[in-house]
């Protein structure tokens, strides 16, 4: 008890710590040691409290978690000091006594000053003296008792203050500013201060006359007398735990079923204010929760409790402590359970506020619905976000990350559960509209599922299902859950969103769905969905997270094409992201290297950090690069060979990035053995260009990252077949000028391909006019025609005529579109869209840019940052 008072004596302002020097001068020499300890302790606690008093935003918050603990420590420590004092010599004790008397005198002076000031209503002086008084009491009070005059003074002061406050409200003239400010500050401090002395004050109030007269000796045990039911009996014998228990114990007295709402109200009112001790509040509420019996009480307490827990952590970069998160998760689960068990209570955002807490809580008639204001969806959102935040911050290579990731199952369960809750609400007409809450929960669910393989989805679904059944009573909804097949769950969730939502959620759902399809090897389906969604036209207007999702989806579709050996499709999908050189940034998988020309403000950097995806959602960048470069190699090397030395053809670049890197690679004078994926690919490319397909094959096969893909063996097989084919083409392109006749049998030996396959490949090249040659069926040879080389001028003439006819076609098309849309108001250059109204429901073939003639433009343009790039790989068709 005593120690706690000692500690709290230090509540005063720092201002007094300087004045304290004055009166402690004499004793200094006597108890230097003790004083030194005291001082330091004092200032420490003052600082702490200061922090609380003034702007306590961040530090105070962080400190709070440890506050209780450190208080205890401090108490232990100071008690030791006191003990030391007591065990000192007699002489010392005498002087201490004197000091005590002196202190009492000073206290009395202060009190008098306060009383005087009260008379003239000078709150500034009162405030000053009150601080001083507190200091003095602390100093004097290293005994067991608080001086009675002090109690009297503070009690009176409180009464007077209340009176003044009442008067102030009605007074025609306001106090001056300093006075009002002082009054306010004293109001707050006094309340807090007096809380410690509640018993004494109540004693005093009970018997104002006699209180002071009572002998002090009797008083000493008084505080320890159990005048009320203590919550914890150990407070008597264990001094060290005393502080926390006094306040808590003191409260516990009042924590009754009846007063739950009163306390809640206090807590809710304190929410968001400075210097509210949230840990303390949480503890109180946990107690309240134990007491709560009716569903209404439980719901109210839980709602307040969960939001207070969320209040514990804020700021952009900090994340919720794991234990708090888990507590919040359990409480949210409880809340949902209470709601499930009591269908007549619902929590909605626009619920009625039940003001009259004193009244008995309402009991709804069966079938009726009583609304409580609150928001389940925001709880779920926050819980989800906090988990993501913590995953963003934890090092992904630690076990902690894995453990934290395990919490996702619990979170998923809650999402499913709240989805069922919202489904129930939406099925009930009496409950007011739930807005897009259901859609938002469904979206959360999708976002937790879409990037996971089927087996994982099955497990997580299974887990949430079993958890739910074991926990709560059977419900109609429960059986619904079962029928969701893991293979179709994303589909069914997404189609719910397609039907019921038209906002950004729908876009996101689409992207997630496409991603999921691509992950499960449905390339054509995902591509068609992608193109039909027409997202590429307006994705650059979307918010950044959606753009990131778009990029992820695009890349995933590309990888899917790669796995299905659709090389050119894969290349064109991956080109956009991989070609940009800012892959990390575009996929939110780490901050890319800083660009030299643009500096990023700390603000931007912070935002970027916030957007980062947790590690487990990452798409392997090395794999992406390997796939992209390999695809580029398979397309680019034969194209380069075909172009030969003609400058016009050289300009037709499939992948700029690949060419640049290839050039860089070729500039190396001494190429060492390949070390990383990139080295492998480029050495393979060089080998392929030189006609050495076997070496190229070996190099590509040696890339280790392929093992990350499912059935990597068949993929490697596919790649080597492709390399053989492209090697053959490259060979023919490169060496055509030097041969008259080539034997197909020889070619098939050289490239280890079936003769039929060779014939087909060569036929294709002939048919597409890629080489000037013909087959001789009888000798099984390829005969090259001579005299087809054209001069430079002729090439240019051809190119010019091509361009002219292209231009005419373009003009005609533009005019047609104009005429169709009925707005023939002069021919403008760059009319981008055709009359969209004249098209069917799944308009696949719209042009979104004026691409050249003949291109069906199945892809449409897609822009991020204003660039427009064709998406789907119809390149080869346009050539034909």
């Amino acid at each position: 008890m005593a120690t706690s008072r000692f500690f709290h004596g230090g509540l005063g302002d720092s201002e007094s710590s300087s004045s304290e020097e004055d009166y402690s001068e004499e004793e200094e020499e006597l108890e230097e040691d003790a004083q030194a300890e005291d001082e330091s302790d004092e200032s420490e606690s003052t600082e702490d409290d200061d922090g609380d008093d003034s702007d306590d935003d961040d530090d105070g918050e962080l400190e709070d978690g440890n506050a209780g603990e450190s208080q205890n420590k401090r108490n232990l420590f100071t008690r030791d000091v006191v003990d030391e004092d007591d065990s000192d010599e007699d002489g010392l004790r005498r002087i201490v006594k004197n000091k005590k008397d002196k202190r009492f005198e000073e206290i009395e002076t202060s009190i008098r000053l306060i009383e005087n000031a009260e008379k003239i209503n000078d709150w500034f002086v009162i405030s000053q003296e009150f601080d001083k008084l507190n200091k003095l009491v602390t100093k004097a009070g290293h005994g067991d008792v608080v001086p009675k005059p002090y109690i009297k003074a503070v009690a009176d002061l409180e009464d007077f203050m209340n009176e003044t406050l009442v008067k102030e409200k009605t007074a025609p003239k306001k106090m001056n500013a300093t006075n009002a400010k002082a009054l306010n500050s004293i109001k707050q401090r006094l309340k807090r201060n007096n809380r410690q002395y509640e018993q004494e004050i109540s004693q005093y109030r009970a018997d104002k006359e006699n209180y002071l007269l009572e002998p002090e000796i009797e008083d000493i045990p008084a505080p320890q007398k159990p005048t009320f039911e203590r919550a914890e009996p150990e407070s008597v014998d264990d001094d060290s735990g005393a502080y926390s228990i006094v306040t808590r114990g003191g409260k516990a007295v009042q924590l009754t079923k009846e007063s739950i709402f009163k306390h809640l109200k206090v807590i809710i009112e304190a929410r968001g204010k400075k210097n509210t001790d949230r840990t303390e509040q949480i503890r109180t509420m946990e107690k309240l929760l134990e007491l709560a019996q009716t569903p209404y009480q439980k719901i109210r307490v839980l709602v307040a409790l969960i939001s207070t827990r969320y209040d514990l952590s804020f700021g952009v970069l900090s994340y919720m402590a794991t234990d708090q998160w888990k507590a919040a998760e359990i409480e949210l689960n409880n809340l949902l359970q209470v709601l499930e068990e009591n269908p007549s209570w619902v929590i909605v955002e626009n619920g009625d506020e039940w003001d009259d807490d004193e009244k008995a809580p309402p009991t709804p008639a069966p079938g009726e619905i009583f609304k409580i204001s609150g928001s389940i969806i925001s709880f779920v959102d926050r819980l989800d976000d906090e988990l993501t935040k913590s995953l963003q911050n934890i090092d992904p290579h630690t076990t902690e990350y894995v453990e934290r990731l395990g919490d996702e199952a619990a979170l998923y369960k809650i999402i499913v559960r709240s989805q069922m809750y919202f489904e129930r609400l939406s099925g009930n007409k009496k409950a007011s509209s739930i807005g897009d809450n259901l859609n938002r929960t469904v979206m959360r669910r999708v976002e937790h599922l879409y990037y996971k393989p089927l087996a994982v989805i099955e497990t997580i679904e299974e887990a949430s299902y079993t958890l739910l059944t074991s926990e709560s009573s059977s419900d109609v909804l429960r059986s619904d859950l079962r029928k969701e097949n893991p293979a179709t769950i994303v589909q069914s969730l997404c189609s719910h969103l397609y039907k019921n939502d038209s906002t950004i959620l729908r876009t996101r759902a689409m992207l997630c769905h496409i991603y999921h399809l691509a992950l499960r090897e449905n390339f054509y389906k995902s591509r068609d969905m992608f193109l039909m969604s027409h997202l590429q036209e307006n994705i650059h207007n979307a918010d950044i997270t959606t753009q990131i999702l778009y990029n992820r989806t695009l890349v995933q579709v590309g990888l899917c094409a790669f796995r299905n050996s659709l090389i050119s499709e894969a290349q064109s999908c991956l080109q956009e992201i991989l070609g940009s050189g800012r892959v990390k940034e575009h996929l939110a998988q780490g901050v890319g290297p800083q660009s030299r020309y643009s500096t990023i403000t700390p603000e931007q950097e912070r935002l970027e950090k916030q957007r980062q995806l947790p590690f487990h959602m990452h798409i392997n960048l090395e794999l992406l690069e390997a796939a992209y470069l390999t695809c580029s190699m398979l397309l680019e090397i034969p194209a380069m060979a075909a172009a030969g030395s003609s400058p016009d053809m050289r300009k037709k670049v499939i992948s700029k990035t690949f060419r640049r890197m290839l050039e860089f690679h070729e500039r190396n004078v001494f190429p060492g053995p390949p070390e990383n994926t990139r080295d492998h690919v480029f050495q393979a490319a060089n080998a392929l260009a030189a006609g050495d397909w076997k070496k190229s094959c070996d190099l590509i096969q040696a890339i280790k990252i392929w093992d990350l893909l499912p059935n990597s063996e068949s993929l490697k097989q596919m790649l080597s077949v492709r390399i053989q084919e492209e090697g053959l083409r490259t060979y023919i392109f490169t060496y055509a000028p030097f041969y008259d006749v080539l034997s197909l049998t020889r070619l098939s030996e050289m490239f280890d391909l079936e003769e039929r396959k060779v014939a087909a490949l060569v036929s294709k090249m002939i048919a597409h006019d890629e080489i000037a040659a013909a087959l001789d069926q009888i000798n099984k040879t390829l005969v090259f025609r001579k005299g087809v080389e054209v001069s430079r001028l002729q090439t240019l003439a051809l190119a010019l005529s091509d361009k002219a006819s292209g231009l005419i076609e373009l003009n005609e098309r533009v005019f047609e579109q104009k005429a169709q849309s009925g707005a023939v108001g002069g021919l403008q250059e760059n009319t981008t869209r055709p009359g969209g109204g004249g098209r069917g429901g799944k308009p696949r073939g719209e042009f979104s840019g004026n691409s050249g003639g003949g291109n069906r433009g199945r892809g449409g343009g897609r822009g991020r940052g204003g660039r427009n790039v064709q998406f789907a790989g119809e390149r080869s068709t346009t050539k034909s």
Partner: protein
Amino acid sequence: MSSEEPRVPAVADATNQAEGLSAIEIARKYDLTPKIMPYLDRHLIFHLLAFLRDQQFYPAEELLQNTYDLLEPTNMTDYLMDLWKQIHGKEDIDIPREFLLKREKVMQEWSALQDETAKITGLLENPDVISNFRSDKMQNLQFLKDNHGVTDDMIDALLKYGQAAYSRGSYDQASDILYSFRILSTDSDKVNQATWGKLACEILTVNWEGAMEEIQKIKEAIDTKPFLNPTAQLQQRTWLIHWALFPLFNHEAARDTILELFFSPNFINTIQTSCPWVLRYLVAAVITSKKNSGSSRAAAIQQKQFKDLVRVVRQELYEYSDPITEFIAALHLDFDFEEAQKKLGEAEEVIRSDFFLQVFCATEQSEGVEPKNAFVESARHLISEAYCRIHQRIDITDLSQRLNLSQDDGEKWIVNLIKDTRVDAKIDYKNGTVIMNHPPQSVYQQVIEKTKGGFFRTQVLHAAVTR
């Protein structure tokens, strides 16, 4: 439209002979009837089912039952009664009362409608009235209202009358009635309905010229009418495509027009999006129409269509493929002649069992000799053309083998080919080879080709813009 699905028997009939099995299996596997049915009218489907009954792929009883179910909602009561008797196997079985009741009811409704519309039909037959008609619909309507007391209700009754006539199976009559309705009515929705109805009548009465007219009208209506939801528009186009298949294969003159329609961007998109199986018919139509190329302009159009076709087939290969589309893919995408030949064999089977495509073999089957298949002929043509383009020297034996012909036939075939087309080739009789001569196209020629139409086209464009 009907959503009737034929109940395709799951288990193949055990009595099927071993060698016949494969043909029937192919026929069943590639039977498009179930896919096409949702897009056709009951009365049109009836003919498809009748064809299937002839082909005997499926048990006859089931098809009979299907036909019965199909026609039940229609008013062809007499025919229904016949069907019912057939299903139950006895001629003299008692007809259930419902039939008689229904027949009575239908007859009553029919006569009621007849009475209702008697006046207006009478008027339309009156030459005095007709002579007063102008080109303006409103005026005509006003004229009838003023002078003969015709009301809007009477005109609407005409539409109902037409529907009833159609439902009874009297298509000629229905066609006439709908025609008069269209003259008078100003309600565009109802006119549309009437147009669809008339198209069905024309198809069913094998009046292809009339059908073509209606197809054009519907196409314009679909293109110009503002649709609130694109899905409805897509659906209408899909219907039109399916309905147009009837004239496409039965009316030689209509083929070019319909192909042009199908290859217009809107319709090719529709085919790709909602009914890729129509590609089979598209391929068949394009391949068979190759032969009768007249002017060079027509040839150019055909060439372009063929190019488009190859592209579309390629794009849709993952969504739809049957031996006929695969044939094109093998020939023009992979240049795998052996595969193409194999596919052609399968395709023959498919064509024989397809309602629309059977016309290619039906015409000559009566001669009794080996049934010549117009499609197969054209396809051979295609193969040899592609073959010649790529090769310089070809063994005649080999080529005839590829074309499924005997050596002599093959030689004859090649001679014809050289004669008919502009292939520059000679036969070396001694060695049994054909020698192709591929003169490299001169650069000058290329430039001229490319820039040929440029000036004219620009002029046209210029005129159009300044207008």
